[in-house]
C-alpha cells in the first residue's frame, strides 16, 4: 500500500480548521437567538452599553416579559397585553395546525392515487396532474393576494381563521403531495395487492395497510407544513385585521413603530420563535426527512 500518510502536524491543523469553521458557523447560527433571548431580560442601560452575558455583566430583569404580562409577578393578574398575545398565539396554532391537517387529509390520498393508479382526465395523465399540483409552488403570493382579498370579502371570510386555513392549505399542498408521493413510491405494491386479493377495498388497503407504513413521512410533511404556516406573513398581513391576526403580523406591527422598547420586542420575538426552536431541537429528524424527500434519487 502506497497510501501517503499526511504528517501528524498537518492532520492536527486540518482538524483544528474543521472545528474552527464548525464553531464559527454555530456561533453565527445561534448568536441571534441567544441575543434575542437575553435581550428580553435586559433593561435600558444593558441595551445601550451592549451587555451580553447574564449574571456576569448584567442582572436579568423581567421587564420585557412584564410588558407582555408573562413575568412571574404579573402572571396572576389580568393583562390585556397577555390576552392579546395569547389570542395571536392561539390563532397561529389554529391556522397552521388546521391547514397542515387539511393539506394532509386531501394531499395524502391524492399522492397515493398518483403513485398507484393511472389517471386520464381529458388530455391529462398522471405526470401532468402531478405537475399541476407542484406548479402551484412557483405562484408568488402577490399574484393571489388581491383576488383572495376580494373573494374573501364576498364570501365573508376576511379576517377569519377559516380563511387563513384555506390559503395556507393551498400554500403547503404541493409540498405535502411531493413528500407523500415520494413516500408511497417507496412502499412496495405487493402489500396492498395481498390485501386486495383478501377482499379489501382500495380505500381499506390504503387506510389499514399503506398509511401506517407511511406514517413517518406523514409526520414529516405535517411538521414541515406547520413550520411554514407558522412563519407565513404576507397573506396574514393582507387578509387579517383584528380577529384572526397571527403572531408574525403582531411582531411586524410592533417593529413598525420606531423607538419601541427592545426588551418587550425581544420578549415578543422570543415567544414567537420558541415553539419553532423546540421543534427544531426535538423534531429535527422529521424536518430533514421532509426537506429531502424526493430530492435524492
Amino acid at each position, binding site marked *: 500500500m502506497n497510501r501517503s500518510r499526511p504528517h501528524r502536524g498537518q492532520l492536527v491543523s486540518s482538524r483544528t480548521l474543521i472545528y474552527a469553521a464548525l464553531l464559527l458557523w454555530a456561533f453565527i447560527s445561534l448568536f441571534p437567538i441567544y441575543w434575542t433571548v437575553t435581550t428580553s431580560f435586559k433593561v435600558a442601560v444593558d441595551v445601550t452599553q451592549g451587555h451580553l452575558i447574564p449574571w456576569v455583566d448584567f442582572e436579568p430583569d423581567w421587564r420585557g416579559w412584564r410588558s407582555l404580562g408573562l413575568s412571574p409577578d404579573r402572571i396572576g393578574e389580568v393583562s390585556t397585553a397577555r390576552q392579546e398575545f395569547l389570542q395571536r398565539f392561539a390563532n397561529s396554532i389554529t391556522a397552521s395546525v388546521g391547514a397542515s391537517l387539511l393539506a394532509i387529509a386531501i394531499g395524502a*390520498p391524492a399522492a397515493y392515487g398518483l403513485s398507484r393508479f393511472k389517471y386520464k382526465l381529458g388530455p391529462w395523465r398522471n405526470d401532468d396532474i402531478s405537475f399541476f399540483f407542484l406548479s402551484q409552488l412557483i405562484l408568488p403570493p402577490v*399574484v393571489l393576494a388581491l383576488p383572495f382579498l376580494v373573494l374573501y370579502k364576498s364570501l365573508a371570510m376576511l379576517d377569519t381563521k377559516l380563511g387563513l386555513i384555506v390559503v395556507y*392549505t393551498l400554500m403547503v399542498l404541493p409540498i405535502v403531495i411531493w413528500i407523500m408521493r415520494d413516500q408511497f413510491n417507496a412502499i412496495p405494491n405487493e402489500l396492498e*395487492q395481498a390485501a*386486495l386479493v383478501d377482499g379489501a377495498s382500495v380505500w381499506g388497503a390504503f387506510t389499514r395497510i399503506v398509511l401506517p407504513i407511511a406514517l413517518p413521512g406523514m409526520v414529516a410533511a405535517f411538521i414541515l407544513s406547520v413550520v411554514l404556516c407558522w412563519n407565513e406573513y404576507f397573506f396574514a398581513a393582507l387578509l387579517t385585521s383584528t380577529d384572526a391576526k397571527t403572531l408574525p403580523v403582531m411582531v411586524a406591527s410592533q417593529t413598525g413603530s420606531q423607538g419601541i422598547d427592545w426588551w418587550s420586542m425581544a420578549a415578543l420575538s422570543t415567544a414567537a420563535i420558541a415553539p419553532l426552536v423546540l421543534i427544531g*431541537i426535538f423534531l429535527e429528524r422529521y424536518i430533514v426527512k421532509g426537506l429531502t424527500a424526493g430530492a435524492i434519487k
Partner: protein
Amino acid sequence: MAATELSSPLTVEPHVRVTRRASPGRRNAGRWLIVISSCAFGLVVVAQALRGAGIIEPGFDTWRPTLYAYLAWSIALGCGLVMTKGERGHQLLFLLPALLFTVAVVIFPTFFGLYIAFTDWNLSSVSGRTFNGLDNIRTLMRDAFFWNALGNMVWYVLAVLVQYAIAFALALLLNAEIRGRKFFRIAFLLPFMLSPVAVSWMIGKSIMEYRFGPAATLARLLGWDNPAFFSSPWLARSSIMAMDAWVSIPFVMILLLAGLQALPHEVAEAAKVDGASPWQTFWKITFPLMLPVSLTAVILRIIFELKLADIVINVTAGGPGGATDTISSFIYREYRDRSNVGYGTMLAEFYLVIIIVFVSGLLALANRWMRRFT
C-alpha cells in the same frame, strides 16, 4: 405473484387495476345525481350573481352559501362517480378532493386577477372599478420603480449562488468525521425554522442597529467608524442578502448533506488510494456526482427567492430609494399604502409571466445540462 393466477386482473404492475363493473341501475342513478347536483349548483351561482348585479331581489347577503353549494356539489360528484364508474370511481375519489380544492382556490383568483389587472381600481377612491384597457401596462412600462425592483431581483437571485457555495462548504464540514455532529446539525438548521418577520427584528432591527447593535459595535472595533448597514444602496442590499442567506442556507445545506451521504463511499476511497489530494477528489469526483442534487437545491432556492418579501417589508420597506425592493415588497406597498388594486394586480400578473418564462427556461437548461454531464 399470486394475484396473476386468479382470473380477476387485480394487478398489472405497477398500477392496481380492478374491473368491477357497476350495475346499470346504479350507473343511471349516479349519472342523474351528477347532472342534478351540477344543475342545482349552477342555479345557486347564477341566482347569486343576478342578485349581486341587482337584477333579482331574493338571495343571500354574501357568497358564503355558494361555497356550501360547491362543497355539496363536490360530495355529490364524488358519490356519482363511484356509482357510475365502480372501482374506477373509487380511484378517482383519491384525487378528487385535492383537485377540486386547488381548482376552486387557484382558478378563480387567477381569472379574476386577470380581469382586475385591466381595470382602474383604487380602494380609496369613490368611483369603484372601471375598465381601462391597456393603461396599466403602459404605466408599468414607464414605472421606473418596478424595473428597479426587477433589477434588484436579478441580484437577489444571483445571491443564491453564494448561498449555495456556503451551504456546500457546511455540508462538507458536517459530512466529515467530527464529534458532536448532532449538535452542529441542529444548530445549523435552526435559522431555517425562524420566521422571517422575527428575523427582521432579531437581526435587522437590533443586532444590526446603528447605535447599540452588537454587529455595529463589532464593526466599530474593527475600525469602521460609521457602521450604518442600511444607509447606502449597496450596503443595504447586501445586508438584506445576508439576512436572507442566514435563513435559507440551512435548506440548501440539508439537501446537499443528504446528497453527500448518499454518495458511494468506494469512489472517494479509491481516489484516496490513488493518491489524489482532497482538493482534486472534490472537484473531480464529489462535485460532479453532486450535480443533480445541486441543481435541485439551487432551482428550488431560486423559486423561493423569487417570492422574497417579508424581510424587505419589515426591515427597510424597500429603502433607501428602492435599493432593496423586491417585486413582492413593491407590490405589497402598492396595495397597502396606495390601495392601488388594479395596477398592483397588473404588476403581479406581469411578474408571474416573467417567473413562468424564467423558471421554464431554467428547467429546460438544467435538463439539457444534466444530459450533457451524464
